[in-house]
């Protein structure tokens, strides 16, 4: 089986009036790759992610997500992806099972399939005893694990993680990366944003956006060597400080 890239962007652009939020970005993400999508606030990351998740039409360029065209196959794009963020996560006052079934339903799983899969998931997470507990009563680490599992319940080819570890304690944060690696090892492509620069070092490759453009792209080791810096944090600061657009 040949493995086509999970994501292809060619000159992808989004303008809002005279403002170019995303300015002709081009990159590919391989299947099963952990791809870190970095950038300062206001650099255009969110706009790019909205285009790649079928929520916003580009105004120029091309992109395919899991082989589907982001212009003409928006619904197929949405069915091929999972999405999780720290801010938009589980419902605190629904139980574990209710959350799983609610999100599974949104992702288009049929009732019988949903029942089967939520049962399997609860067993796999070893949470039978907590299945009927409210999410808010569970430790943060468990909630994160459930949120991630829910985002991949419908077996998407690609999962988008938008600042998944914001505000999370340092041990739970590291456990979350174990989950990411586990999923990537199964062939799922992971597209992740973070403001924790140590986490950038855990990605197979990272890109750094500045003023709507991708200013750096490569493995953390290549990027550090190529720019003569000791860490991705140093590179990020170097590139982001060069941005003219600032943070407005």
């Amino acid at each position: 089986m040949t493995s086509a890239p999970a994501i292809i962007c060619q000159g992808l652009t989004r303008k809002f009036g005279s403002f170019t939020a995303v300015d002709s970005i081009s990159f590919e993400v391989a299947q099963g790759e952990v791809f870190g999508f970095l950038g300062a606030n206001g650099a255009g990351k969110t706009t790019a992610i909205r285009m790649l998740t079928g929520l916003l039409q580009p105004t120029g360029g091309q992109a395919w997500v899991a082989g589907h065209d982001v212009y003409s196959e928006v619904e197929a794009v949405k069915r091929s992806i999972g999405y999780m963020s720290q801010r938009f996560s589980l419902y605190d006052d629904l139980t574990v099972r209710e959350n799983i079934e609610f999100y599974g339903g949104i992702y288009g799983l049929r009732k019988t399939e949903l029942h089967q899969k939520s049962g399997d998931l609860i067993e796999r997470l070893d949470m039978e005893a907590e299945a009927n507990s409210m999410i808010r009563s569970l430790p943060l680490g468990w909630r994160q694990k459930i949120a991630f599992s829910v985002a991949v319940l419908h077996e998407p080819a690609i999962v988008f993680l938008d600042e998944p570890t914001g505000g999370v304690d340092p041990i739970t944060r590291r456990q979350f990366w174990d989950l990411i690696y586990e999923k990537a090892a199964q062939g799922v492509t992971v597209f992740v944003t973070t403001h924790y620069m140590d986490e950038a070092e855990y990605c197979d490759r990272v890109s750094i956006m500045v003023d709507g453009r991708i200013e750096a792209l490569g493995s953390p080791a290549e990027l550090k060597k190529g720019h003569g810096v000791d860490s991705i944090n140093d590179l990020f600061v170097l590139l982001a400080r060069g941005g003219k657009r600032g943070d407005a």
Partner: protein
Amino acid sequence: MTAVDIKALEKRFGKTAALEPVTFSVAEGELFGLIGPDGAGKTTLFRMLATLVLPTGGTATVDGLDVVRDYRELRNRLGYMPGRFALYQDLTVAENLKFFASIFGATIESNYEMIRDIYGQLEPFRDRRAGALSGGMKQKLALSCALIHRPRVLLLDEPTTGVDAVSRLEFWDVLTRLRDSGLTILVSTPYMDEAARCDRVALIQDGHILEINTPTGIEDSYPLPLLSVKSSDRLTAKRALERFPFAYSVYPFGEELHFTDSRAEPSVSEIKTWLHEAGVADAEVTVIRAGIEDVFMHRMPTVEGQTGVA
């Protein structure tokens, strides 16, 4: 002079303790950090100090005023920046600032030097609606609004959450300058690296304060030898270290692994040999000084499935 004095302050919601009794004080002109993850109790503590939530036990004074009895007077002396963006999204940058000045009976003109440093960067966008600003700019506007009535004590609840690494650096530069001008600042953050910018910090987790000290004092408190291990094959190195008989904990730290040895005198060459035998040929092993994040993880109460070596 003590700016904030907290004695056995606690907050319970029914049977749940959002904050166990905590006791500490903050000196005038001190930059004091509360470092801990979401759900640690930081916001609850700030809300009590900001006179927005009543404590269920203990006492607290800010600038000599009691947070319960003297709440009216105290509100004039406090600048409070809540964790969630609390400005008016439909008002412009300038309108928000004017509004916050006017509710405290102040004017922008008379107090402009308080905010020159921060608001200066916002002025080009003064007519933009606050809702249309992005993360770092919103946070600068919120700080300007919290400062415009010349408070004596500033309470900043997670001002840098969701903010990029460069904006975070700039924000802390501003806080340092405000501290140098004599303002007392209490700031909370989930970012461990920001602790180093504070005069003193409290590590907080699950409603408990784990430790209060200077950043250096906290780093010095790490009780075991800590080693950095670098290798091109991080995963194999991690697994091998986890099997090492004297492993206490192994955590990824960016491109390094931080390995804590349970013995007082670990041998670097022994660890290197162990890694070599596990197939890790290029390991660089060096003894390092612990950082705040190392200490925090070490001090975290062990939750099921959260041992370092698991």
